[in-house]
């Protein structure tokens, strides 16, 4: 447990960690989901887990630890959305092609194209282009091999380039 919020010292410690990491986590959540409310919920969920964790990660490992939780919470949320029928099952790229074609501007087209990627590819893209992580850091964040990260990034970039080609 990182801190007991019932005492002032614990609350101050929690606030310190929150102020140091929450904004970046929120931005990551927003980049991954495009939903500000959901992004804040994800940040809170991550800190709830941190608060309940039996041991506190070191200061050096804290950012990566929290990032991994957020990424996996996004994954879990996505899975639930798919199961609940509120999200397009991955692998169905027809909506994305139409969305890209109908996009009013280039930025919206990129949004649509990224949204149409597989969940795994989308996370790799966000962690690479938004977070600026190396392949090894991405692999650590999402628990797959570096080789798989390279494969996902390569395929994601190729897919995005293909889908956006007509709009260039």
């Amino acid at each position, binding site marked *: 447990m990182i801190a007991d919020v019932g005492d002032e010292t614990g609350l101050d410690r*929690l606030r310190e960690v929150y102020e140091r990491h929450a*904004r970046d986590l929120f931005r990551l959540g927003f980049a991954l989901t495009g939903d500000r409310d959901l992004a804040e919920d994800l940040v809170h969920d991550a800190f709830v887990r941190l608060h309940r964790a039996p041991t506190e990660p070191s200061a050096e490992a804290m950012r990566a630890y929290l990032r991994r939780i957020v990424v996996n919470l996004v994954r879990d949320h996505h899975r639930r959305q798919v199961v609940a029928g509120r999200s397009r099952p991955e692998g169905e790229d027809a909506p994305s092609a139409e969305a890209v074609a109908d996009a009013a501007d280039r930025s919206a087209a990129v949004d649509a194209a990224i949204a149409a990627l597989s969940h*795994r590819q989308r996370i790799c893209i*966000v962690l690479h282009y938004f977070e600026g992580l190396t392949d090894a850091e991405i692999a650590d964040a999402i628990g797959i091999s570096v080789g798989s990260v390279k494969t996902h990034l390569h395929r994601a970039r190729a897919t995005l380039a293909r889908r956006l080609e007509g709009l260039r």
Partner: protein
Amino acid sequence: MTSDFDDELRAHFDVARDADLPAGSFDRLVDRLDAPLAPLRARRMPKLLALAAAIVLIAGVAAVAAAQGGGDHPQSVHSVDDPTSTTGATTTSTTRPHHTTTTERVPGSTTTTTPGTTTSTTEPTVERDGRPDTIAAVVDPDGDGAGSLVVLDSSTGKVLRTLVADQVVDDVDVAPDGTIYYESDRSVVALDPDSGEQLATYPHMRSPEVSPHGSQLASFDHVLGTVSRLELASRQRKNILGDMGGNVPGQLAWSRDGGILAIEDVGPFESPDQGDGPPSLRRVILTDPNPYDDQIDMIDESFAHGIDDAASPVFPADGSLLVVSDLSQDGRHVVGDRMDAWDLASGQKLGEVSVSDVSGLDASADGQWVIATREGKRPHVVMTPAAAGDLQDLSRAPEGIIAAAW
């Protein structure tokens, strides 16, 4: 792909880089820590109102029954503090009459300690028949997430009744007394199999698995990321496995004596993919959920015993661990083409059975029979003797069965 394209993708996320947390975010976090369920409660207010109405109705029925002198087994209705909340939220439940009871001390018998009191309880438990007449199953024929909870004839698969229709139903287990526990919309619901009455709702729990003697409910807390067990009699809840580093427990399985809990460890990406990678790695982690202490007793034996890349753990009668192996991805699910039996004491693989596209397992109460769901164009249920014998298709079962238990 050009560097310009890479630059464009980096610049595309500038909107996110400029985003900022809403004011008061930390205060809302503190509220969450004080009351972890608050946001979920807010989102589910209509359901809670319905639950409250059900509580009033149940209480009224109980009062009438009491006034009429009840019967040999009057229903008891009680409301207890939600052990995961500190805000006084309540979970209301009704205790159904057990079909049969025994006073013999079994692993389900527990000594519970609460602040200020020490209570020793010997839970009445129920021994299930070897091969029950019915199976509880989750059916999702369209694969769109809107499923049904049905009761099937265990010989033919014929649907005997529908308990829940057109809801998000993901997983199911059946307690020895017949109570059905199913996962729906991030909660576990206890249901009377005969009347369809909701007996209790356990928020933010998934993957319900009732211990063989019916005293404990193991589940995954999707908010805290932990595996916990709830003692159904006392409503005390304890973690038995801490945060799995973001991984998600899948299927859970109790050993026959209730001393071991096998947990399917689903890797970070269970969600469907485009077939551009290997299936998610699944391991079977074994824990020793000692009911008499508060310690988290995780024994990660997956590597020591070589039980890796395996799913859907279940314990047959001989005490071995049966898992699905040779995994691959089939649509939304990871399926296997082989069932392996492991001797946990020696770490030796005892044998294997070839069976295609198996996705989930559940053993009968005596461990002599195993039912499995099979994926494919027509997901269905099969049944096999745990030791040896041929698989039996339940030919009259509906299409799209994604989970089954008995």
